[in-house]
């Protein structure tokens, strides 16, 4: 199914994500990496203070859509196309891969690239490559 190309909304939303990352660094000194913050909540090595900051950031993420509804009157447009079985596997791989590779789209892709980190640039190229390949195979080779 086609989706509408939204260059301005996407650019604007991207800048909000950037502003959030700068705000968290300016006030708390932490990288706005979602997999890092989320997995640090239940990692034994995290101290209580860092755990609190991570939990509140994640709470903010969870509150965004409900506040969006209160203000705009409708839920954000969304379609989750993959089957339940595929979502099970996808969830496991995303959670494991992001935490094992120390970052996801936000930690490596946004914050890491913005710091000029070679590790993050290589990680981003790697997950972009396997993601493009996965869709190519699932939509055009197996599904096509």
């Amino acid at each position, binding site marked *: 199914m086609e989706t509408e190309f939204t260059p301005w909304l996407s650019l604007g939303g991207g800048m909000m994500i950037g502003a959030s990352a700068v705000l968290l660094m300016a006030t708390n000194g932490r990288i706005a990496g979602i997999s890092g913050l989320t997995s640090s909540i239940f990692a034994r090595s995290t101290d209580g203070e860092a755990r609190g900051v991570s939990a509140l950031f994640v709470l903010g993420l969870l509150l965004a859509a409900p506040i969006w509804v209160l203000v705009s009157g409708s839920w954000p447009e969304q379609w989750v196309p993959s089957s339940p079985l595929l979502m099970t596997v996808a969830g496991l791989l995303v959670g494991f891969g992001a935490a094992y590779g120390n970052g996801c789209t*936000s930690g490596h892709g946004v914050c890491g690239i913005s710091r000029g980190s070679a590790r993050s640039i290589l990680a981003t190229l790697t997950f972009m490559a396997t993601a493009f390949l996965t869709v190519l195979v699932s939509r055009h080779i197996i599904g096509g």
Partner: protein
Amino acid sequence: MKQIFALLSGLIFGFGLIVSGMSDPAKVLNFLDLFGTWDPSLAFVMGGAIAVTTPGFYWLTRQRNQPLFHTKFHIPTRSDIDAKLLGGAAIFGVGWGLGGFCPGPALTSLPIMASGTLIFVPFMLIGMWLARNTPDLGRAKQQGARS
């Protein structure tokens, strides 16, 4: 104060994901589908985010010795490229391509309660827990050889 700003940062991040369209897996999968129904929007999300974060981080880390409400900037210092980094990223990419969700959009979408999201998020948390409890064999071996 730091707690309020952590919550606020998460909120702004979530709004950014919704406004940009990142919280819609159909849009993400179309970005990854170069040879099909390609939607280049997400390149603009990354571009917009990096265009703000790069000067922001540069300015912060040069003009200030510490954040406003904390004692230090927690900035990763590692620069080695290892199998754990690339292997993890490769696995993450496959999952992202299968479901169209990465961790931020999945958590932001949770209250919308699409059945796919309700399945994805718990398994993502299990995956994270497993990764946090998987020893880094490459590093352990190296450190063993050194000592």
